[in-house]
């Protein structure tokens, strides 16, 4: 069984637009016999409208766009995981990167390493994904694969090692020379199906020897065994391949393959490279969090005999119900088994278990650790962890941050309204940090999330995937209130006119909580407030936290201590004490000098070093505090804390000041006090809005 897992590859194919991802993926599916004909991206006249890959996929009915497609090559099973083309960082992208064990980075031999390649590559770096590179389009005019190798080294900081050199270039491209075996490889037949090898063409012998030398030189840095073999002239292919495999997996080198997917050259050797150099699931360290042990990290093993742990990484809505793509990290899932969703502890039964192929779905009875399959009809969210119940763990932290920004949505018509509802239902399942609700006062649909870009992505998806035409309001920051000093209260709620009377008195004080949460301390002695009414007092105070008395923002970090009170044998009730607490809150709150808090984001900008100054300025102008700047190769990563309200539109600004070469991520880090002058502005704005009948 372990041998089978060793022959499994979960890979992503990443590329910038127009570098040939669709053509290469299609050729892979063709050579692995998943599809039986090759279509071309462009029309026969060669100038036909260039379609984007998604449209093409849809038109062809190929499910490359599905989260994972399965194929087999030379006894190895390969799951190709869809690498999202957009660079906006969402939880879905994170999950796609997480489930892949390795990736193929496609580069255009003419265009080279472009800014989008840089972005995608840096995302993969973050997730420590080992890569091999494929320099495509070597048949194009202006092709220069050696220049691209240089760029891989300089721009992406990869230790790129050429595995091949091209036989001919541009229109004369006819094959590749393998630098390990030192043979020429040609791809013959109408679709390049027949792979033939022969001697290295005489005019390439010198160059091939030189490039092989360079390859061995580079590899010998990592292996004494290889160095000795070179010195003793006992070098063989097995040693070279072993070093390449080990160092690719440890991300010290990036083997580089060449070819032209369009001309059917070099695809099969790339597939060999995937099998030979990218890791099997057993070679990748995967961590889960033990929910029964304070989220302690546990290392998972790709062992089919161990308890099941699987991650739902993508949901797809099909006419037959929800399709949930899962990656099994440990254990074996069988049809009919019970699984437990860690988030809800709910048990589900595995009904249909399927493996996705290019254009078909294969029902399977079981699937093992390391594999990627899909479950039909399971009610779950994307990012859910499944276990067999013997182990309660999660592949990601169960901590879900509160949204910090919101946006109102107005559908254009009834149809858009229905589609919007479907979209919102889907998105909230996919992403726990995305929320939606209908504001009771304005009747508007409000979506909230972790940043402007985060919401932009969903609004865009709503339009594209669900045809929901909506108009968005201005983004609103989720401000909070907090008190700054201790303030005492002594409030009596008394109503003794007509009907049953109400009486309750509470005495104590409110103060800022060091823990930053709501705390309720009961120090009442002698039963002055009967014990049964204490929860009602707590409830009364908690109800006030939803809307502070300053600007009606929720109140954070307050500690209430109730020391004394008074009750009436007949007129006291839970309701009376809840009202007394509300009165006490009102009495003490403004005396406790409340302030407005604003969400502050941790912003991380990755940018070519020459733009460091521009980026620093732009952050400084936004009331940001730069924490650090780290130089790595030709890149600089700047980390800063910036108020969210200042980050609106930053993506556009960043693009313009860095020629589109920067990438930034941001996440909520803390609430900080809004400066006095801005708090006053906000108060004025809110008052004006209230006068105009518009709720802020």
């Amino acid at each position, binding site marked *: 069984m372990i041998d089978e897992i060793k022959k499994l590859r979960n890979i992503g194919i990443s590329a910038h637009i127009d570098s040939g991802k669709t053509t290469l993926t299609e050729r892979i599916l063709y050579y692995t016999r998943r599809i039986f004909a090759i279509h071309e991206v462009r029309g026969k006249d060669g100038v036909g409208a260039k379609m984007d890959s998604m449209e093409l996929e849809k038109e062809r009915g190929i499910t490359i766009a599905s989260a994972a497609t399965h194929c087999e090559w030379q006894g190895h099973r390969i799951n190709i995981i869809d690498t999202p083309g957009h660079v906006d960082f969402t939880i879905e992208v994170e999950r796609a990167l997480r489930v892949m064990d390795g990736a193929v980075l496609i580069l255009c031999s003419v265009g080279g390493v472009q800014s989008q390649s840089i972005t995608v590559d840096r995302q993969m770096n973050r997730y420590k994904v080992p890569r091999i590179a494929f320099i495509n389009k070597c048949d194009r005019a202006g092709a220069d694969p050696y220049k691209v190798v240089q760029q891989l080294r300089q721009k992406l*900081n990869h230790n790129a090692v050429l595995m091949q050199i091209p036989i001919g270039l541009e229109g004369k491209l006819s094959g590749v020379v393998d630098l390990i075996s030192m043979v020429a490889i040609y791809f013959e037949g109408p679709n390049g199906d027949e792979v033939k090898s022969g001697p290295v063409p005489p005019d390439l012998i010198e160059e091939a020897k030189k490039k092989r030398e360079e390859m061995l030189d580079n590899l010998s840095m990592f292996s004494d065994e290889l160095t000795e073999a070179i010195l003793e002239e006992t070098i063989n292919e097995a040693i070279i391949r072993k070093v390449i495999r080990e160092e690719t997996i440890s991300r010290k080198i990036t083997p580089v393959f060449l070819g032209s997917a369009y001309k059917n050259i070099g695809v099969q050797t790339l597939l060999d490279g995937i099998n030979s150099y990218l890791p099997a699931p057993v070679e990748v360290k995967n961590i889960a969090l033990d929910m029964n042990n304070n989220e302690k990290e546990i290392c998972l093993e790709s062992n089919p005999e161990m308890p099941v742990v699987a991650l739902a990484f993508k949901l797809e809505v099909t006419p037959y119900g929800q399709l949930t793509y899962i990656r099994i990290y440990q254990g074996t899932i069988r049809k009919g088994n019970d699984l437990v969703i860690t988030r809800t502890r709910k048990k589900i039964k595995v009904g249909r278990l399927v493996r996705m192929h290019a254009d078909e779905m294969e029902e399977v009875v079981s699937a093992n650790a390391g594999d990627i399959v899909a479950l039909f009809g399971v009610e779950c969210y994307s990012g859910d962890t499944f276990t067999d119940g013997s182990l309660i763990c999660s592949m990601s932290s169960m901590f879900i941050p509160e949204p910090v920004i919101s946006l109102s949505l107005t559908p254009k018509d009834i149809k858009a309204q229905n589609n919007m509802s479907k979209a919102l239902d889907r998105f909230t399942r996919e992403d726990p940090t995305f929320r939606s609700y209908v504001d009771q006062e304005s009747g508007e649909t409000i979506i909230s999330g972790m940043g402007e870009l985060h919401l932009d992505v969903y609004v865009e998806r709503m339009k594209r995937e669900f045809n929901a035409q909506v108009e968005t309001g201005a983004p609103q920051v989720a401000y909070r209130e907090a008190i700054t000093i201790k303030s005492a209260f002594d409030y009596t709620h008394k109503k003794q006119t007509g009907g049953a009377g109400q009486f309750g008195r509470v005495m104590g004080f409110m103060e800022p909580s060091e823990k930053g949460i709501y705390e309720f301390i009961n120090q009442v002695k002698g039963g002055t407030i009967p014990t049964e009414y204490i929860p009602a007092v707590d409830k009364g105070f908690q109800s006030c936290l939803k809307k502070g008395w300053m600007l009606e923002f929720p109140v954070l970090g307050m500690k209430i201590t109730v020391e004394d009170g008074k009750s009436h044998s007949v007129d006291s009730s839970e309701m009376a004490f809840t009202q007394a607490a509300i009165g006490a809150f009102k009495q003490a709150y403004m005396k406790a000098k409340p302030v407005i808090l604003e969400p502050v984001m941790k912003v991380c900008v990755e940018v070519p070093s020459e733009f*460091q*100054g521009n980026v620093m300025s732009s952050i400084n102008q936004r009331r940001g*505090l730069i*924490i*650090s*700047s*780290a*130089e790595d190769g030709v890149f600089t990563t700047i*980390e800063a804390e910036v108020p969210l309200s200042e980050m609106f539109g930053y993506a556009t600004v960043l693009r313009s000041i860095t020629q589109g070469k920067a990438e930034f991520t941001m996440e909520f880090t803390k609430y900080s006090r809004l400066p006095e002058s801005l708090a006053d502005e906000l108060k004025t704005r809110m008052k004006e809005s209230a006068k105009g009948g518009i709720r802020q």
Partner: protein
Amino acid sequence: MKNFISVSPLKILDKSSRKELGPGNLGVLIARAGVGKTACLIHIALDRIFRQGKIVHVSLEEGPEKVMSYYNVIYSDLVKALNIEDSNDENRMIIDRSRMILAYLHQSFDLDRLRLNLNNLQEKLDFKPDALILDGLDFETTETSVFEGLKQISQQFGFELWLSALSHRHISDANERGVVYPVNKIDYLFSIIIQVQAESSGVFLRLLKDHDNAIISDTSVRLDPNTFLSLV
């Protein structure tokens, strides 16, 4: 944080002729591996910060996150050891606002880059440091011209610059002035040289060079090996 300043390892400079390293000068801490060079450098940084100064911390080995966590750990130890109240994290905010971390990973460090980065800090952020802490420079492989360049930079920007140097048990070379390897051949570039030594009774700081003062007082400062605070 007056109570910290009174027990900071920089107390050793009270015994020096000018009581400080001073702008435009280089200072170095020499110690064997594991004695606490980074911790001492961070104490120097905190000393400057709590005297209302600004510092740039340059790290050549660790990323910013690690550097930040060093500061957090050392500051937390300080709070405990000195029994300081910091309920609103005000001191932490002061540290964050007064410190800039510049990391140069994977051999990205060179003088031109440092100069450019410091210029950016000054021009774009109006951040003018009083001290620069440079941790992780390999004295054995770094050419003298780099130290000369660092001295020029400290003069150009008007800050004092502190470095740490790794010494070895098996190399006991020292020059006629008593300055030990690996600073023995370039000691003329440094104004203050301090040796950090771990002994059974604690960690000791010894002044090996005090500006142009030929006579160095033969006194040392003993530090608590856990907190690196001076034991008065």
